[in-house]
């Protein structure tokens, strides 16, 4: 299997992780087409996750902006975000591999929650690493994980966000390679993770293809998705890569891309990062002149990451995917507007995608039919919003 997407990807990991990565790759190749595996996974996706999710025509928003806007309702997946698509796939794979323990990192807490769910359901001992800054701003998700029997470890090193949670999860995996599967939550990390996560998330794009054909008789002009690591974006984009559909990856512009030698006050690695090595992959990374990784920032914890999936970095480089960014303020405006116009409270992450469509609707570049990946619901963000508006 090719480990690279152009110059991006690879396996930059301690030697101890080579056997488990190889084992994972072999198991994935063996089971992904195995009838027993696929029938169990499809059953879980349908009856546990609640798929397929609707492709909802946002009539009021469409009327306001003068283009047809569809929302892919991943916020309706059990748990409230697209994350379960991947955790179901990987946890089932881990089960088939005979693993006993799951570990995961989480930013917004959505991936941690989705891991806690499959951990409980499939009978794994489950541990989730979460930056202490994220623990504070996503308390409801921390409590949800605990309710489902998962141990949440607050990580107090570095920027205290997802980057550091991944470091800590990797250290755990290095120590417990035998019985533990590292259930990585985005299309990041060493090969084969970017590929496996993309494949499990591609159910989103496959459904959109069928649904949009049914109502429109054609594919949309554009698909817009937010991107931190990039799993919801790759999931909805991947099935459309060979079609004439514009693909926009909206990153967190935070405080308008400001940065210094230690901190980026944004998380736009596709738009502004330089080639580097982070968490096992060569990709676009927010870093200083020496190559020290910057602390990233975003109002949306799930986008707050200094790297991005290697395949998305490659697709941006070739121009197939257009990277763009939205500031915290613009995302907050979109959060409120969608809530009022459609009665749907989006996750702050997904609000970045909404905001981009609001901003660009009359520029012509989106065309007249747009699908937005509404990757999660906003309940988890209510505390953040309330604090900001105090």
């Amino acid at each position, binding site marked *: 299997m090719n480990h690279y997407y152009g110059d991006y990807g690879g396996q930059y990991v301690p030697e101890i992780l080579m056997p488990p990565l190889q084992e994972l790759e072999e198991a994935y190749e063996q089971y992904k087409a195995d009838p027993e595996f696929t029938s169990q996974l499809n059953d879980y996706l349908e009856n546990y996750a609640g798929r397929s999710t609707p492709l909802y025509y946002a009539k009021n928003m469409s009327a306001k902006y003068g283009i047809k806007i569809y929302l892919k309702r991943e916020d309706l997946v059990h748990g409230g975000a697209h994350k379960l698509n991947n955790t179901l796939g990987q946890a089932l794979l881990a089960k088939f591999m005979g693993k006993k323990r799951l570990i995961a990192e989480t930013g917004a807490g959505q991936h941690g929650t989705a891991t806690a769910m499959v951990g409980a359901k499939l009978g794994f001992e489950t541990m989730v690493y979460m930056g202490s800054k994220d623990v504070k701003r996503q308390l409801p998700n921390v409590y949800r994980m605990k309710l489902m029997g998962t141990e949440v470890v607050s990580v107090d090193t570095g920027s205290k966000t997802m980057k550091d949670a991944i470091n800590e999860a990797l250290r755990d995996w290095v120590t417990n390679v035998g019985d533990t599967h590292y259930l990585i939550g985005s299309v990041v990390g060493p090969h084969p993770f970017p590929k496996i996560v993309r494949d499990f998330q591609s159910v989103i794009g496959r459904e959109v293809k069928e649904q949009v054909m049914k109502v429109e008789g054609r594919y949309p002009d554009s698909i817009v998705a937010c991107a931190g690591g990039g799993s919801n974006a790759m999931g909805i984009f991947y099935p459309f890569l060979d079609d004439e559909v514009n693909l926009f990856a909206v990153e967190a512009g935070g405080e308008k891309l400001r940065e210094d030698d230690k901190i980026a006050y944004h998380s736009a690695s596709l738009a502004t990062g330089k080639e580097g090595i982070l968490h096992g992959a060569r990709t676009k990374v927010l870093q200083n002149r020496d*190559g020290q990784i910057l602390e990233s920032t975003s109002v949306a914890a799930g986008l707050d990451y200094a790297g991005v999936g290697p395949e998305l970095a490659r697709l941006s480089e070739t121009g197939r995917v257009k990277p763009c960014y939205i500031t915290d303020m613009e995302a907050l405006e979109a959060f409120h507007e969608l809530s009022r116009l459609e009665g749907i409270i989006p996750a702050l992450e997904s609000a970045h995608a909404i905001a981009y469509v609001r901003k660009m609707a009359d520029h012509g570049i989106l065309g007249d039919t747009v699908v937005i990946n509404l990757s999660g619901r906003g309940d988890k963000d209510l505390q953040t919003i309330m604090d900001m508006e105090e």
Partner: protein
Amino acid sequence: MRISQKFEELKDKNEKALIAYVCAGDPDPDTTPSIVNALVEAGADIIELGLPFSDPVADGPTIQAATCRAIEAGMNTESYFEMIKGLEVNVPLICMTYYNLIYRQGSENFVKKCADAGISGLIIPDLPLHEADELIEICKEEGIDNIFLVAPNTSDQRLDAISSKSSGFIYIVSKLGVTGEGKNISSNVAGLLDKINSDLPKAVGFGISNRKHVEEMVAAGADAVIVGSAFVNIIASKDNVISRLKEITKDLKEGCR
């Protein structure tokens, strides 16, 4: 000094090598030379100087904290090479760092700077053999050794490949896990030492922190031991650092004789 030359010297004296790791710039860039001098004076044969990286995934809490202190104190790639050029010790110096700092500078540029500064070898824990082809070529041209790591779970096939591509010595990771002081060293290390089919010296690291560990590794057939966190903990304590570093170094070196 070349690493191979040091091992030959020690062979003549029938001694094993003590390789001492400290993080450059911990607690601050000005103090590192006196720490290195103390280690060498007290018997360390090779010095491994960490170039601190913000995200050291192969390191446990002790070295992570040292890395943070060093970066906070202003250590960076440029000051690292400057500091090394100023060292007046006659032992091989090894640069231990993570791959992004090398990649950012450009491998060729970085390796040339190493050679200019008098560094003899590179240890990069997040660069496994199959991603290292380019760097190996560059290092060969500049006469810098590539020290690769093998672990208790490394397959026989990879062991052979790593043995054949390594230079300087082979770094044997004693346990599944990250760096840090440990109570006991796994008895499996002896088996791993036996399995490695190479003329290169074999150095055992990760979790080796006292003389008993050193003696066990020497008895198991190691040509060298690598000690890091035990030194770093003394540096972090700020208590009588130089004399305590000398004391533990002498004791560990005794275990190599």
